């Protein structure tokens, strides 16, 4: 079990992410963690749904939400999901350079998403004076969307650390699971976003 050598055609297993026990453990562990995250976000969604009409006289969701920006954000994040799929595709083909490239694109898309979100929040605060403290609805909105944004931010830092650390090393059985596990996490962020744009924004527009 030597970790330090890059993979070559002879040593490249079909699923490098699960070839070692450590890798398998990481893989299983992250998936289980996502099971817990599901409950975490469900609780946040539940709180949001329970409080979304408690505006205490402040602006309501129909008044403030705009769909254009949310649509752009959605496309950014969905695309970043695809690019991370590409990265994993190249990982399985043992093409490290391409994997790096696609991961960088993934990261950039994520960054774009995050910028839009920050812009959106600032917009709400400055234009509508709709803040975290203005009503229970405000608290619930910023908490739910903010938790998701926090996950994106964490994902980006994680990705950056991975890319930098392994920049010159090539693919091996020690870092392949790390990349794979990151991509799983990234997809999950997308899953959550699908519900956020549906439940918060679209349903918020419908009323």
């Amino acid at each position: 079990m030597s970790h330090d050598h890059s993979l070559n055609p002879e040593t490249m297993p079909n699923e490098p992410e699960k070839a070692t026990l450590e890798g398998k453990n990481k893989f299983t562990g992250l998936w289980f963690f996502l099971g817990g995250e599901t409950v975490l976000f469900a609780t946040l969604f539940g709180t949001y749904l329970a409080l979304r009409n408690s505006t205490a006289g402040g602006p309501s969701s129909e008044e403030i939400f705009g769909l254009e920006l949310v649509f752009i954000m959605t496309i950014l994040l969905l695309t970043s999901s695809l690019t991370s799929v590409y990265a994993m595709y190249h990982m399985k083909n043992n093409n490290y350079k391409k994997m790096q490239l696609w991961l960088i694109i993934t990261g950039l898309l994520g960054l774009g998403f995050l910028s839009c979100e920050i812009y959106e929040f600032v917009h709400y605060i400055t234009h509508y004076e709709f803040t975290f403290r203005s009503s229970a609805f405000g608290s619930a909105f910023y908490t739910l969307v903010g938790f998701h944004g926090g996950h994106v931010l964490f994902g980006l830092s994680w990705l950056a650390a991975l890319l930098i650390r392994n920049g010159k090393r090539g693919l091996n059985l020690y870092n392949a699971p790390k990349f794979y596990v990151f991509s799983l996490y990234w997809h999950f962020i997308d899953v959550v976003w699908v519900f956020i744009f549906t439940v918060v924004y679209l349903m918020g527009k419908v009323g």
Partner: protein
Amino acid sequence: MMENTNSDNVNPYQKQKNKEEMKKQLITFAAMIVFTLIAFSIVATELMPSMFVVPILLILAVIQVGFQFYYFMHLKDKGHDMVAVMIFGGVFAAMLTLAGLVAITWW
């Protein structure tokens, strides 16, 4: 987009399989984009009464999420049994939580 690179790096059979898998994932992605477009447009155009819109939106979201899980995250592949158990455990607990907070709080 998917030109062959360093074709000597992985055995050809596996390579072919990966490629087919990738094709499926591309189709999945296209479907997700379409779903998203549908969801946004029914809200933007306000063609339907909200009573219908909400369930449709939710169904679209669930299908999209299914795509993510099963294709992008490979939940359909073998070796994912325990993983699926835990995810569905999470979904089960999540549904109850939602039921509690959305419905029961207000009875």
